[in-house]
């Protein structure tokens, strides 16, 4: 039982970070970012290149992941999303763009990093062992702590800085924020870069444990969508709850249902559909987001 709870916390903290980036982008621009999983994979590959191949210290490699993704996110917003949102008759056209970007990033990952599974050396060795009831490698604990710290830092940024205030205003009401003197174009870009950066950060953190490969992008996006739906689209606290709930469901499901074969996800999906039928806006979401 302790083991399941610990796994749940570990998975939940990772998932919450992925969902945070997605929900931030959604809240600001009403864009469903299909490319989120691909951004996560790129983050993993950047850390792999710097830390695993060139021997740069892990923290610096992680910072490089963040910077790369932030720049990438900012460029994508400025040159692709912003003009399309402006010129399109329907908001949904951005979905096509997001899917196109997901394809493009997949292609770039394939060309630059190849299709092999990549891993990096462990950052810390050893295993935490509490009476054989709770076994957790130290590097997982470290990653989990780092993820929780990042989430706290992100919430702090959103709550207490000028940028965070502008972003929250933008998420609440775009027009009103503009009337209050928020530079909407610039903060959309900042928000998108921040969301992409979070995806890159998780990718960089998780490459030390699960490794990274080209095929991880799509499934990661789907998981992120599920977390956002559980918590409610466009709500920061909802994304964190969604991540934690999904992490725990996965940990419990893998432990309890493993004898029945691979049905954990089927059950999660089905219960999600039932949940959404009762509460369409998720746990925290505004109706019709």
């Amino acid at each position, binding site marked *: 039982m302790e083991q399941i709870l610990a796994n749940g916390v570990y998975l939940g903290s990772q998932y919450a970070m992925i969902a945070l980036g997605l929900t931030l982008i959604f809240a600001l621009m009403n864009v469903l970012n299909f490319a989120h999983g691909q951004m996560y994979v790129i983050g993993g590959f950047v850390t792999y290149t710097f830390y695993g191949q060139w021997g740069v210290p892990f923290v610096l490699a992680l910072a490089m992941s963040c910077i790369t993704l932030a720049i990438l996110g900012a460029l994508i917003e400025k040159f692709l999303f912003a003009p399309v949102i402006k010129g399109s008759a329907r908001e949904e056209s951005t979905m096509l763009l997001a*899917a196109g970007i997901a394809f493009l990033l997949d292609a770039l990952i394939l060309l630059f990093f190849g299709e092999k599974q990549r891993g990096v050396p462990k950052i810390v060795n050893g295993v935490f062992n509490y009476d054989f009831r709770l076994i957790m490698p130290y590097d997982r604990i470290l990653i989990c702590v780092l993820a929780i710290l990042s989430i706290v830092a992100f919430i702090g940024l959103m709550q207490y800085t000028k940028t965070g205030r502008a972003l929250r205003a933008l998420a609440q009401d775009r027009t009103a924020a503009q009337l209050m003197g928020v530079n909407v174009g610039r903060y959309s870009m900042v928000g998108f870069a921040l969301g992409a950066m979070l995806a890159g950060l998780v990718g960089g953190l998780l490459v030390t444990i699960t490794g990274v490969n080209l095929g991880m992008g799509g499934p990661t996006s789907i998981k992120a969508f599920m977390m956002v739906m559980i918590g409610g689209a466009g709500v920061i606290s909802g994304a964190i709850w969604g991540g934690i709930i999904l992490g725990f469901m996965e940990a419990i499901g893998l432990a309890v249902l493993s004898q029945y074969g691979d049905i954990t996800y089927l059950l999660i999906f089905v219960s999600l559909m039932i949940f959404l039928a009762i509460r369409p806006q998720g746990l925290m979401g505004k109706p019709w987001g």
Partner: protein
Amino acid sequence: MLNFSAKQLVGVGLFLFAIFVGVPLIISATGRWDFYFTLTSVALLAIASAGVWLTFYIGRINIGQGAFALIGAYVSAILVVKAGWSFWISLPAAGLFAALVAILIGLPILRLRGVYFAMITLVLTQVVTLTALALPITNGAKGISSIPLPSGVSLFGIPLIPDFAAMENTKLAFYYSACILMIVTYAALYRLVNSRLGHLCRSMQQNEELASSIGVNIAYIRIVIFAISSFFGGIGGAMFGSIAQSVYPSSFQVADSINFMLNCFLGGLGYVVGPMLGTLILYFGWDLLFELGEYQLLVYSIILIAVIRFLPNGLLSLRLGKGDQK
């Protein structure tokens, strides 16, 4: 309501002539027999995309058509292989079963809107794939393979549809049947859009509360539309399974669902033929770029992004000014 102008009639006539006479002539002249398979796939995917387009028509973004295509493919395969039905009877049965599933699932999820509906339908695709893996009747990951070719149909001794297994050129036969199915689908779609139901759908697309307040039964209409949409998906999937002669849980997955959506967006949501054009360009373009090898996905995605960047309202928006809406 259905008064065609002479120009439109000529256009439809040219189109029919092109796909039934022109394409076979060109293919036999160039010797690219593989194009038959590509074009057959385009026709079938266009049928499924037509369903997605129809759900757009009531203002819902449907990324779950892969689920219904997979359901259709499995129903048809199981009926043909295990129950020994004729394929031509299993085809509507597959569509009806997909529609039935759509009604059951649609009752709760059609209350969702916007991205919520989009995301739940995306999840639905994953659910159906996982269900196909878990159920015993679908044979798990091994899928159902060596499905027999469609048998002949004759009415009072007059052969209506020849036996596919006895034919030397099944590619051509499949091409023709897929094209006929596609044309029937789009004719039905055109008729639907220009009917009273179509007008009601348009009112829902703009504002559901308003439509509801003037007496449109929105709950009923959206179920009906979703069922019709899934019927198309089931038919397309069933035919696809018959051509490939096999069905696997991975035959239609999330990526396919997204592609169905892209077909509609790319062609343009304001036009009945939009999804057909979008499917043709996306699928055929992907096939043509095959010669680029490892750069295939790169070039494809760049073109896709460029199109949406400069024509965000779909390819058919190029002729928006002419007022020649079909």
